[in-house]
């Protein structure tokens, strides 16, 4: 009996949390027009979220692409369709691995950085000080970070996919002997703009989700050292769950 009550309580808490996050998002959106007047702040955050994540994204893209090349080749070999490796790798990367893996890595690297930055600013009263100086911290500090993440994500996912395709090509063509011409021509014939669109839409939605969760956790973190730590952990976990869940929804929607 108590288990049911606890379950019910945690459900209502989750519901309240979800509502809180959505309200926060609306607040961010409302503050965005004025925040966009400070392009220098936003571009600095694009640098923090995007350019600083480049190394890990490119490395991961390369390795994932190479594994895809290996596995794809092995699988297609059973059907005698090795030339379709280009298609398989591209579709796998652009539609799924690119957006999802990039989002997970983003949550781990940039998401935690955002959350801990904001959490620390909360803990050291910097946000309160700004409010006291009649500067809206949402507009000055939170929205630029949010927008930085939203803009950086699709770009990172695209870079991941492209490097991944080259990684697959490296393994498939150079190492496993798939014909380079077939690799690219079959890909071109089979991959459509719709597939690319699906990937772009996914990475945009993931960008919004991860950035939102990160800035939310940071902004509302308990102002203690362990509070900030908890906020960063929750960022990664919540982001991961939502990424995978939304991935299914969007994939189904595009079918």
């Amino acid at each position, binding site marked *: 009996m108590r288990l049911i009550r606890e379950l019910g309580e945690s459900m209502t808490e989750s519901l309240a949390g979800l509502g809180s996050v959505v309200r926060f998002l609306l607040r961010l959106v409302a503050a965005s027009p004025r925040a966009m007047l400070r392009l220098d702040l936003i571009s600095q955050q694009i640098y923090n979220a995007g350019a600083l994540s480049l190394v890990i994204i490119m490395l991961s893209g390369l390795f994932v692409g190479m594994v895809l090349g290996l596995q794809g080749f092995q699988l297609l070999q059973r059907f005698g369709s090795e030339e379709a490796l280009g298609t398989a790798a591209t579709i796998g990367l652009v539609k799924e691995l690119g957006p999802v893996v990039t989002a997970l890595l983003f949550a781990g690297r940039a998401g935690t950085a955002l959350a801990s930055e904001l959490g620390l600013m909360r803990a050291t009263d*910097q946000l309160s000080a700004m409010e006291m100086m009649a500067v809206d911290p949402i507009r000055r500090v939170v929205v630029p970070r949010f927008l930085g993440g939203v803009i950086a994500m699709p770009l990172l996912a695209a870079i991941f996919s492209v490097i991944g395709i080259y990684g697959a090509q490296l393994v498939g063509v150079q190492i496993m002997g798939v014909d380079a011409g077939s690799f690219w021509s079959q890909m071109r014939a089979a991959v459509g703009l719709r597939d690319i669109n699906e990937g772009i839409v996914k990475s945009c939605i993931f960008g919004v989700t991860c950035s939102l969760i990160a800035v939310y956790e940071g902004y509302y973190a308990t102002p203690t050292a362990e509070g900030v730590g908890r906020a960063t952990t929750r960022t990664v976990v919540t982001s991961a769950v939502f990424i995978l869940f939304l991935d299914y929804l969007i994939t189904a929607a595009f079918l």
Partner: protein
Amino acid sequence: MGYAVNGNRPVFTGLDMDIPRGRITAVMGPSGTGKTTLLRLITGQVRADSGSVMVAGEELRGMRRAALYVLRRRMGMLFQNGALLTDLSVFENVAFPLREHTDLPERLIRQLVLTKLQAVGLRGAAELMPAELSGGMSRRVALARAIVMDPEILIYDEPFVGLDPISLGVILRLIRRLNDALGITSIVVSHDVQEISTVADVVFLLSGGKVVARGTPQELQSFPSEIVRQFIGGLADGPVPFHFPAPDYFGELLAREDA
């Protein structure tokens, strides 16, 4: 300008304070009586459940955010740990309110910032980052930032915590000089009885959600109240008990032996 505070939250019940303009007012009390909450009420970061909070003749209750922001520009606040923005230099920190609220040319901003830094004695540290400052120095920078917009009211939240005697003396002197030179109202929340008594004009003592004493530092020394005596004298036991509520001492000891 004065304040009339009459809050009614679990923190305060029937609080009635009148802070005089142009003077240094000290707010003291045992830990946990809600001194910081009082500051939050004054700055509008927290809303009173009942009663009124009036600052400079304006009622804070029911004020919309925009109006609150306008009012806050006339106030300056010094946080307990300085609360400098860590990614900006000392100069940029002090310049922050100017950049956000005014359209002043760079030349003018520079002059203003350097003047304020000079007033707190840190003009030479303008290019340092907050991480490179000592506690006392960062608090002085925060003070420069608080006065850069020439506020009418200055609020200090526990400005002496963790400072060595020299820095403490510096801050004390600055509080007094700024108050007199700029003709502003200063509110200092502290529990450093000795220190604050040297500069305060009026002292409020809070306890149990109410004002228990009001007067000049001298008056408070001989105030006919138990709690005032305990606080001023730094006595270990009195109206604020030494022992946390616990069952009978011998009873507890013996019970353990039995088990």
